């Protein structure tokens, strides 16, 4: 049975019982009042009759008494008026046929006084009244009044009564209750009608309410659940109601959202695993034939010293085969990204090596490569091979963007710049650990903001819990909430796991003086945020005390076609490519993973049609390795950006607005150079004119 039907039945039963009881009480009170009133009227009437016939009786004017009783008895509402003598004989009556009849003392009219042989006395009104039903079917109220002996009675001229008699007779006034009964019956009918109406109205209201507040939301939830069961995780049910079902709908939507994110991550992981297997297989299969080609070609190359033409051709074979080797190696690198082996390295030198590797491709694309390298750059602790891969990827990416820039202006330019910079913690420092006061882990690897696991907390505003993901980058404030919150409202913040309060006692927000809440960032102290929605106030005393941190900054800027803003957010996702079939979608994902592995930062700014600027910052001070996966095998530690919201989408205009957040970078003695100095041990590349000549 449906909830609505049950509720309607229950309410109808209760309404019927309550109204029934009420009508019984009201009607019986009403009836009692009516009868009492009628009894008083009957008493007054009998008093009036007794008084008005008094002198006629004394003077023994029987006709006058007959007339008076007859006249009164015929009035409306009066059934009959009669007078008995002491022996029960009817002496006077408005019904003349009765006169002369004697009544049994046990009859109704006499019972009150003669019951149990009691002597006739002065009786109270209720004892003198009685209600009986006539043969005609209606009820009658009878009121008797004993007529007591008085000196006037025994001393009157007629000498009708002795002095010893106590009661001379009884006046019996009978009032019809037909009218009163009619009123009561009408009231009863009205009450019943009212009860039926009340039940019908409350049932209708309940039906409407249950349909609107329960049935429809529940039906939507059921439909949503079925859709989710069928695998459609984009389902969202309407969640506008402010009641419990609204909360349920919101929780449902949250659940599907998290599920779909988890599913996406899973699919991503699956994709990664298959590409890993593919890479391993491809590497093994392709490396064998490549060994043949490379060995034979290099063997021949060495023995063709005297034939410059053949030698040049063989050089092409060797070079391109080695390129294949690099591609396969890159694929393998992607399949198992390893933690960086950091050594103090010359970043400029790495850039030159990377440039040498891709020089051929840049030349082919008519790219003008210029450098602005800070010659005083201190050695940076980094994995030279990995960072070289980053630079190669960024350069190839830029070259591709230029090649696709449009046929009208072939070629373009890439500018590579290095500098040392001091990066303030605000807007840059990453919160890499977060726990509640009871030690629950608050980092949510399934929800990432700019590719980094976000900090999951519960926000409670007027008894409503909202899941909030805090931006893991200190001071940036790209938080996400599962539903919008009211601006300016101070809410409570709790751990989603153990519900511990996150409030920080005794400290106030610097900006708005509101209360603060915080999480423990491992050994790096506590990070605090203002509990007032919309207030940017946040503190991380540990980082603030450290102050700006030295970073080496690498900028790769091109004047290619640029990246649409919509794509910026997904740029570092694996398998996301704007290059169509030419791109593997892995280059920037690997780049992101390497920079992240170095605890560095990578940002992209782009303007479609004008160019793109990638900024990589690598820290000079390396944070101590977290103890979470100490023995993790190098082969099974994919460091991948999440599928969603990976890049820091800071288009040129937006990014340049916050000068206080931009790191101060110095570019002392810039050394612009057209080409890096060629190095003996690098991939040989042909002079440009020769290649051009061959087409």
């Amino acid at each position, binding site marked *: 049975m449906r909830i609505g039907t049950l509720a309607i039945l229950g309410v109808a039963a209760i309404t019927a019982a309550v109204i029934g009881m009420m009508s019984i009480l009201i009607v019986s009170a009403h009836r009692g009042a009516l009868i009492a009133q009628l009894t008083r009227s009957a008493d007054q009437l009998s008093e009036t009759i007794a008084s008005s016939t008094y002198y006629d009786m004394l003077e023994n004017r029987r006709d006058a008494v007959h007339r008076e009783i007859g006249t009164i008895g015929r009035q409306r509402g009066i059934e009959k008026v009669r007078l008995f003598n002491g022996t029960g004989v009817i002496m006077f009556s408005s019904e003349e046929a009765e006169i002369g009849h004697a009544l049994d003392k046990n009859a109704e009219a006499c019972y009150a006084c003669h019951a149990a042989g009691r002597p006739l006395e002065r009786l109270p009104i209720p004892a003198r009244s009685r209600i009986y039903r006539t043969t005609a079917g209606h009820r009658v109220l009878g009121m008797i009044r004993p007529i007591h002996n008085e000196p006037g009675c025994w001393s009157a001229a007629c000498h009708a009564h002795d002095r010893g008699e106590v009661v001379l007779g009884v006046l019996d006034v009978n009032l019809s209750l037909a009218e009163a009964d009619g009123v009561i019956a009408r009231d009863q009918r009205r009450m019943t009608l009212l009860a039926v109406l009340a039940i019908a109205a409350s049932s209708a209201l309940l039906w409407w309410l249950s349909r609107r507040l329960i049935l429809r939301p529940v039906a939507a939830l059921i439909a949503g659940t079925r859709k989710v069961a069928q695998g459609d995780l984009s389902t969202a049910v309407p969640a506008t109601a402010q009641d419990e079902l609204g909360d349920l709908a919101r929780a449902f939507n949250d659940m599907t959202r998290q599920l779909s994110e988890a599913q996406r991550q899973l699919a991503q992981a699956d994709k990664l695993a298959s590409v890993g297997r593919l890479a391993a297989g491809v590497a*093994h299969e392709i490396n*064998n034939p490549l060994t*043949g080609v*490379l*060995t034979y070609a290099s063997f021949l190359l*060495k023995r063709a010293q005297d034939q410059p033409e053949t030698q040049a051709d063989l050089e092409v074979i060797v070079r391109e085969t080695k390129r294949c*080797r690099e591609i396969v190696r890159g694929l393998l690198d992607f399949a198992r990204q390893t933690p960086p082996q950091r050594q103090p390295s010359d970043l400029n030198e790495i850039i030159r090596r990377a440039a040498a590797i891709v020089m051929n491709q840049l030349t082919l694309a008519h790219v003008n490569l210029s450098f602005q390298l800070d010659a005083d750059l201190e050695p940076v602790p980094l994995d030279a091979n990995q960072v070289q891969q980053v630079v190669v990827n960024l350069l190839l990416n830029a070259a591709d963007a230029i090649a696709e820039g449009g046929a009208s202006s072939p070629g373009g330019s890439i500018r590579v710049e290095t500098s040392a910079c001091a990066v303030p913690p605000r807007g840059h420092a990453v919160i890499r650990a977060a726990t509640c006061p009871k030690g629950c882990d608050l980092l949510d690897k399934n929800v990432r903001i700019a590719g980094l696991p976000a900090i999951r907390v519960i926000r409670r505003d007027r008894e409503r819990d909202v899941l909030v993901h805090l931006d893991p980058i200190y001071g940036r404030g790209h938080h996400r909430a599962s539903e919008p919150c009211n601006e300016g409202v101070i809410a409570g913040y709790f751990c989603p796991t153990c519900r511990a309060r996150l409030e920080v006692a005794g400290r106030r927000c610097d900006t708005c003086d509101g209360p603060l809440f915080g999480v423990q960032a491992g050994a790096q102290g506590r990070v605090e945020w203002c509990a007032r929605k919309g207030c940017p106030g946040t503190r991380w005393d540990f980082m603030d005390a450290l102050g700006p941190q030295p970073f080496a900054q690498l900028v790769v800027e091109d004047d290619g076609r640029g990246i649409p803003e919509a794509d910026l957010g997904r740029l570092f996702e694996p398998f996301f490519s704007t290059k169509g079939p030419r791109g593997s979608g892995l280059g920037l994902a690997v780049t992101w993973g390497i920079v992240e592995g170095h605890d560095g930062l990578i940002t992209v700014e782009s303007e479609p049609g004008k160019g793109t600027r990638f900024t990589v910052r690598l820290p000079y001070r390396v944070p101590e390795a977290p103890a979470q996966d100490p023995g993790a095998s*190098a082969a099974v530690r994919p460091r991948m950006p999440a599928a969603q919201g990976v890049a820091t989408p800071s288009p040129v205009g937006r990014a340049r607005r916050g000068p206080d957040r931009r790191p101060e970078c110095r570019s002392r003695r810039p050394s612009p150079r057209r080409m890096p100095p060629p190095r003996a041990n690098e991939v040989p590349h042909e002079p440009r004119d020769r290649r051009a000549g061959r087409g």
Partner: protein
Amino acid sequence: MNPGIDVLVVDDEPVVCDAIRLVLGHEGLSVAAVPDAEAALEHPALGDCRLVICDLMLPGRSGLEVLRAMRERRPGLPIVMITGFATPANADLVLAAGATAFLPKPFDESELLTLVRHVLAPMDVAREERSP
């Protein structure tokens, strides 16, 4: 039966065997090639060859088993492991199992020659001393 075999190559890929034979043959080394672990461990040249070049991934028993069996039989024999699936983990694995060197595929002539000369150098010195 195979007098004067210097190098035993174990690889199921003929082109790799041929390439090694070409390069090392040109250096004056005689090369025998076998496609799997069984053939390698039963090869008569195993008793007196100067160098083994063995692929890590062989059909049937792996190159690692070949390496261990050979190392047991001839502890001083230079064994170079080659593989198309070169990971640091694989490198650590074969070096820990007793390989003399680890060479990722694909390699070019000079990489192969440099390595082979390097691992054979002490023996060459010894041979030259014996028969000037």
